[in-house]
């Protein structure tokens, strides 16, 4: 943290007099460089990194292997003859482009819906005090902690009777139910960080509530809009069980359902096409990993609202 400046001056002053001041010496930048590298800690960390990176590495490694290397009794830790066959096969399996389109339409709809609605709600919950506000906040938190099936079962029945199963709208509304509460929660945090003096100044200049919102607050809360859009994207892009339950027509599958069907649908055959599946998993994960890296600064702060489930 901010300890470096004072400690540097302190140790510089102490050095001529006090040779044994190990504590203050080790805190100066120069001697910290000289201090022995903590080999044991580094070794443990290295082992940890290998273990934790291994599954991802193995996915990518498998994705580039030809069938013969994948199905060998001694695994190859690097593809001997790297190939893109798996990717072509994955994209060729079923109608990849159709599933991609399904995913994009439903996810984009859910994100736009929940960000627009959530933006106004977050403004209300951060800029005004009114009765029932705390109840709403608690409700928003609790909804995210419900077991998935608690919403899945009744939504399935309701959408069934409204003929919304197997449609984009039905799936989109199910995602909005999951995503809107935490979008509100996350954006509210960003609203709270904007000083109220700004709105008051604008009001004194004669701005209406609408103008304060659109001219002052919404532009300032842009980072929050981006962060919660990404959260919302990740949560709905990754969903498997809702789409699996709602979308029975194969033409309506989303990418996760398609990806998992590599293993479940190929019943009596020799088994799963792991090469194709890992290539598909790589393609599917890339946008999520990229987005995760973009918002990683907000990750920890957004977590108390349970924004991205583990």
């Amino acid at each position, binding site marked *: 943290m901010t300890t470096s400046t004072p400690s540097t001056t302190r140790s510089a002053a102490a050095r001529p007099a006090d040779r044994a001041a190990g504590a203050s010496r080790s805190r100066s930048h120069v001697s910290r460089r000289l201090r022995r590298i903590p080999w044991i800690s580094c070794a443990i960390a290295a082992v940890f990194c290998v273990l934790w990176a291994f599954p991802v590495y193995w996915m990518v490694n498998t994705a580039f292997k030809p069938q013969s290397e994948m199905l060998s009794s001694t695994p190859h830790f690097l593809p001997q003859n790297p190939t893109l066959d798996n990717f072509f096969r994955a994209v060729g399996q079923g109608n990849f482009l159709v599933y991609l389109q399904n995913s994009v339409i439903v996810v984009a709809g859910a994100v736009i819906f929940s960000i627009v609605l959530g933006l106004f709600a977050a403004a209300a919950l951060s800029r005004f005090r*009114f009765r029932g506000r705390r109840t709403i906040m608690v409700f928003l938190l609790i909804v995210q902690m419900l077991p998935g*099936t608690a919403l899945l*079962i009744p939504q399935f029945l309701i959408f069934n009777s409204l003929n919304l199963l197997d449609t984009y709208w039905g799936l989109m509304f199910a995602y909005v139910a999951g995503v809107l509460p935490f979008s509100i929660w996350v954006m509210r945090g960003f609203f709270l960080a904007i000083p109220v003096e700004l709105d008051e100044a604008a009001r004194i200049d004669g701005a209406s509530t609408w103008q304060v919102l659109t001219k002052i607050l919404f532009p300032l809360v842009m980072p929050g809009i981006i962060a919660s859009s990404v959260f919302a994207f990740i949560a709905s892009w990754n969903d498997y069980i809702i789409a699996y339950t709602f979308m029975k027509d194969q033409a309506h599958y989303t990418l996760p359902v398609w990806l998992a069907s590599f293993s479940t649908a190929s019943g009596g055959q020799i088994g799963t096409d792991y090469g194709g599946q890992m290539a598909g998993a790589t393609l599917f994960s890339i946008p999520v990993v990229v987005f995760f890296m973009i918002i990683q600064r907000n990750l920890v702060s957004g*977590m108390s609202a349970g924004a991205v489930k*583990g």
Partner: protein
Amino acid sequence: MVTSLAPAPPRRPAGSPRGRLPRSTRPSLAPLWLLSPAGLVLLCVTIAPIVFLVYISFTDYDQRTLFTGEYSVVGVDQYAAILSDSEFWLSLLRTVVFTATLVGGSVLIGAGMSHLMTRLPTVMRYVVTVVLILAWAMPNVASSLIWKWLFQPQYGVVNWLVTQTGVVGDITSVNWAADPQLAWVCIWLLVVWQAVPFIALTLYAAETQVPLERKEAARLDGASEFSVYRVVVLPALKPTMLLVTMLSIIWDFNVFNQIWLVSAGGPDRATSTLGVFTYTTAFSGNVQIGAGSAIAVASTAILLVLSVLYIRNLVRSGEEL
């Protein structure tokens, strides 16, 4: 940990003075029209379904109802049935044990990792952070499928590596998902693998707030690294640790995709937690939606207790509601 450290706006309560002054009543309508679109949607997609779920749990709604729309109210019969069903209690027990081992494992590893990160040189710490975020970012559908491939009998790399160590003999043909204990181990590893990054990074963020002087002083006094952690770091981390643990309990209680994709609750229901039991009751076999709803209501009630505890802690730790 809190979403924002800024204090709540010191606004005058807009709704309290009723009617007298037109100027003070006008802004009180703003939250109403700002909230109503989201409120309306949430009413339709969350509140109404939950109310409906509770209602359905008192009926014999099943497959035939999906087509004919006919069902009858059976009172608490569904609840009586599930409470006397040993499978329900077994699922609950499995869920509790599974959650406990998951939370214990991931918090322990996460805390160890976060403390280790504070001792690492900058470059190494950066590498660890990137690896953690990578593991965290993987969609759990993808990671579940990776797991099946890693643990695949015959060609799976895990079986091969374990065999190479020579400790347990040749296990290349062992099918993890088909063995009750091994299926648990396999899923446990998967969930812990994805849970550790959040815990480690959150605790690391909190641990950087602990003054370095205190740790250095303890080390100078000859304290072992473990007692430095226990005496100096842990007390300072307690609030964060508590929130992380409670959040982990709630999430791990709800783990579904990983179990469903790796073992589908098998072999012979050995890995069937409450979530899986609810899903299979309501959506497979003879589609007993009424019974499934009753189980869902029961698990919701359990989670509600955990959530309320969590929220109370969140408020205590300074989160403004």
